[in-house]
């Protein structure tokens, strides 16, 4: 499937996941003390369900929606400037992360729960590496500070979202007919 160009149905799937990631900016997981948005949840799922190429396409579509002015970036922001701003690295990371998750998931015939968890965790390492890298450069923070702001507060929520994404993936993957 990697070599053939994706079918129209595949492209439609990827668009839907782009739209879901966009809508995910307004969906909250009720986690005390601060509720978290479901965006990276959909990034994981896009990669795991659609594979690397389409997963990356879905996130590129998400970024395009934000660039043309829909308030779908974290906290209701929009516009190309956000991509160059302090949190822009995470957005680029979504594309790379979805690709990595997709490739790792596709490496197994029928990946189980733990394989999915591992794939998504590796994908998130890429998301955070790009995100924190740009945060440190743009906001002129040193690496420790950037890690403290950009990584530590999101670890519990991030792990929770990975587990949820893996469970949901197992439930719905039979319905994805690429």
């Amino acid at each position, binding site marked *: 499937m990697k070599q053939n160009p994706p079918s129209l149905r595949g*492209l439609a799937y990827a668009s839907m996941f782009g739209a879901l990631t966009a809508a995910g900016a307004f969906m909250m997981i009720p986690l005390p003390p601060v509720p978290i948005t479901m965006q990276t949840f959909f990034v994981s799922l896009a990669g795991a369900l659609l594979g690397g190429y389409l997963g990356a396409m879905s996130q590129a579509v998400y970024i395009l929606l934000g660039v043309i002015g829909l308030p779908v970036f974290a906290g209701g922001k929009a516009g190309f400037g956000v991509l*160059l701003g302090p949190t822009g690295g995470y957005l680029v990371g979504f594309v790379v992360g979805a690709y990595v998750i997709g490739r790792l998931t596709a490496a197994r015939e029928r990946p189980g729960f733990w394989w999915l968890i591992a794939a998504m965790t590796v994908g998130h390492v890429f998301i955070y590496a790009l995100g924190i890298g740009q945060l440190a450069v743009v906001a002129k923070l040193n690496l420790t500070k950037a890690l403290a702001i950009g990584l530590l507060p999101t670890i519990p929520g991030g792990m929770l979202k990975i587990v949820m994404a893996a469970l949901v993936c197992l439930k719905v993957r039979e319905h994805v007919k690429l």
Partner: protein
Amino acid sequence: MTDRLFPAAAPVVSPLRNVDPRVKIAAAVSLSILVFQAGPGQIVLLSLFLALLIVLSGGRRRDVVRILKPIALFAVLLFFLHALFTPGREVLRLPLLPAVTHEGLAQGGTVAWQFAALVVTGGLLTLTTLPSELVAALDKLLRPLRIFRVPTQDLAVMAAMALRFAPTFLEEYQRMKTARLARGGGAPGERLSRKLRTTGRMAIALILGALRRAEELAAAMEARGYARGPRTSMRELRLTRGDYAAVAVMASFTGLFFACRLFM
């Protein structure tokens, strides 16, 4: 609620409405970059320019309010976060709270302004441009990326599909939440594990709905003879004299912006 988050093009005749969508996207991109570069002086300049654009957009006040309302609370929150937690010269001390600092006020003001300016810029674009025009323009603007073998035509069509369905998904999610409330779920004091399980179930329902819609959409497109590859457009984009004028205005404003930076 969804139309507040995704403002649709208003059917008013206005100067901005007639500008070529490619020019408008390019202008919105450059403005959103300028927003992050602005110092105190340029904030005034940029705010005036945005106000001018709002007037040119045929801006009715309620459109602007509609764009800003959903983010207002967040912007205020952001302002107070910075005002309270930035170290610096103390201005005001309230009981039980960290001191408000001079630096904090300045930084909070800047951040809240950046936030509002970004949202207004994006809102101006979507308020004055039809989605079909946006997609046609994206198709053209992304074309240079083809040398990196990015499938730009596919991306433009996919953005059109996503543009159509993002509000739908949000609406479905809201409907599920309301339905849950109506059935007595989500009461205060509910256990966290239960809340999480419900969120997971809602996600599954949402995704299955999305997959079904994708299949129907793909089948409908195939039935209408959609083929990938080079496509013609119902509205051919053509740059007119007015568009060049708009480019000139934007370019001279950018020039003024950076001139200000040098001399202020």
